[in-house]
């Protein structure tokens, strides 16, 4: 087991390296630079700025320089928000994104698994169709439609929640973002769960369990659920990585100070270090959650062994 963990961590290093390298050069190929936006910037000042940030050096040297700093855990300063380092921005934004994202994913998993099981047990009945309809709607309507409609209905008309803002983390401010982030996930989870539960209930060991006279509760929740959870686990890994690193749309519409919005903002402003920082953070989360998924797989499915 320990060897497996070590091997996985070692194989993550080249993956990360390739991602960092591709992103670095991809971004530099794009025209423009971090100090090109401000019109009438004095050429001397611009040259000075570029020298301070090593932007006047050849690209390969900048790349080595960035890698070197990254290995030391230094993400560098932000070019467009000069008072902050990238690490500062993440320190304040990441907890917000993680909080919203984990609540959304947690709720989606709990409610989605319950709905999926319920629908599978009542296959082709009214309740089943209701769950399927919800799943279709949730996965079809895009977030940037759900979020403003939520604001229109519950914030502007009914005035139950504020339209946006963080409000120092008051729970009323979190309801909208969490719900809009949750709905598409809920749709996918319940749909996956329904499908895999229907399949699991047809398995031989379930027939055996029934023949042995086990209670329905024990058959479904102890024997069928275990196998049926596997697709959910493999879905939840990448989903967690995406949700915990923040959503551009939700954070922009509800004006939440997470890190999701930096993706677009920084890429458009050519804030190279900030873009690279977000790429690295997302990559770390992706690698980490894929790893957790594999461990969970082994825990749930006794056929999977890592030696």
């Amino acid at each position, binding site marked *: 087991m320990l060897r497996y963990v070590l091997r996985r961590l070692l194989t993550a290093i080249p*993956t990360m390296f*390739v*991602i960092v390298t*591709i*992103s670095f050069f*991809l*971004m530099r*190929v*794009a*025209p*423009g630079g971090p100090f090109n936006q401000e019109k009438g910037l004095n050429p001397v000042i611009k040259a000075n700025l570029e020298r301070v940030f090593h932007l006047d050096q050849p690209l390969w040297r900048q790349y080595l320089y960035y890698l070197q700093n990254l290995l030391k855990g230094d993400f560098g300063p932000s070019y467009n928000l000069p008072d902050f380092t990238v690490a500062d921005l993440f320190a304040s934004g990441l907890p917000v994104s993680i909080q919203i994202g984990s609540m959304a994913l947690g709720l989606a998993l709990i409610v989605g698994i319950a709905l999926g099981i319920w629908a599978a047990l009542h296959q082709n009945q009214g309740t089943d169709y209701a769950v399927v309809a919800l799943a*279709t*709607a949730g*996965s*079809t*309507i*895009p977030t*940037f*439609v759900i979020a*403003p*409609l939520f*604001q*229109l209905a519950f914030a*502007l008309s009914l005035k139950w929640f504020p339209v946006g803002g963080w409000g120092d983390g008051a729970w009323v401010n979190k309801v909208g973002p969490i719900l809009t982030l949750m709905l598409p996930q809920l749709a996918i989870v319940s749909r996956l769960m329904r499908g895999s539960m229907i399949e699991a209930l047809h398995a031989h060991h379930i027939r055996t369990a029934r023949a042995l006279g086990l209670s329905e509760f024990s058959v479904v929740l102890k024997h069928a659920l275990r196998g049926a959870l596997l697709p959910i686990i493999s879905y939840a890994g990448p989903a967690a990585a995406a949700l915990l690193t923040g959503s*551009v*749309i939700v954070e922009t*519409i509800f004006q939440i100070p997470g890190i999701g919005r930096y*993706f*677009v903002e920084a*890429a*458009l402003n050519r804030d190279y270090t900030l*873009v690279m920082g*977000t*790429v690295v953070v*997302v*990559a770390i989360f*992706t690698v980490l959650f894929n790893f957790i998924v594999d461990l969970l797989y082994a825990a749930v499915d006794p056929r999977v062994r890592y030696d």
Partner: protein
Amino acid sequence: MTEQTAILPADKGRSLWADAWARLKANRAAVISGIYLMIMAFACIVGPFFTPHDYTTIYQDYNRVPPSLSAYPKPNQLDLAVKDAVKRARLDLAKWEEKDDKIITSVTSGKPIDERVTRYLDRSDVLENTLVTDKSADGLSLTMTSDVEKKYFYFGTDNSGRDVLTRVLMAGRVSLSIGLLAGLVAVVIGVLYGATAGFAGGKTDEVMMRIVDILYALPFIFFVIMLVVFFGRNFILMFLAVGAVMWLDMARIVRGQALSIKRQEYVQAAEALGVTRWGILIRHIVPNLLGPVIIYMTLLVPQVIILESFLSYLGLGVQEPMSSWGVMISQGAKNMPSANWLIIIPALFLTSTLFALNFIGDGLRDALDPKDR
């Protein structure tokens, strides 16, 4: 006792496609969705020619008027427009009244009035055919009659006073054509790449799929934004870029299919019979690949439409005066409390289209899935 057996005519064999078509026709949701999509596409292509307004025309007197089946102007707008026109003409309004569908306006001024002031009234979006009916001897007061210009805004107007009906149809053209074209680009790249990897096998396959894995690991939004930034805000290039990032799933699916088809007995039999590689490709492999490709493409089109809307929402997509549903939704979101139709109408168009495409995709999957037979 004689036994008679009716000899029934032999059932005509049904090809894979005829069978799939029959199954698709039996799926009510898919059929209704198909008809709905055709109507939607037809409305978007032909509709803008028949709506009473052009999608770029700005009616300054009709900013953000709500959807209505009855004609504009409403009485209060008439009042505002007449007062506004007289003010623009630098005259004083004595009174105005409506009589037999004509507007009679009396104005006064400190200086003699030039009769050409009628054009100020004509210039408003509400009045037309203004004529001078009476002029006082000293030229200081004037009476004019004008016709009311009746206009219909079934879906209301937007912030700048443009007809939402025409704009939502024009936006539909953009969204649908981007969906189709970018979807097609993704399918072509994905099929070629996946099929090459699958058939070549061995080292080539391994390297090609490693590249796909790495592209998967790159943050998707970052990748798209970089492409959009790189290609500029060019309409055609933009959806080529969108298509170019969405081929990964297609490549994986096609590669898997190609690998498994390659090992089927009928392919080996054809090889043993001396059928050329090209013959095998056309007769056996392409028809067997087509099913998953078609299914995936119908599911890809809505994804591309969502991605395009998302980019437009961020301001990276289609630029003014052109519009797409994503652009309209983002503009609507900014005007929500006072003008909710600006978001509700494009949101309805977008989501209903996405629903229809999803139902067709599901229907095709059920119709073409050989496991389900």
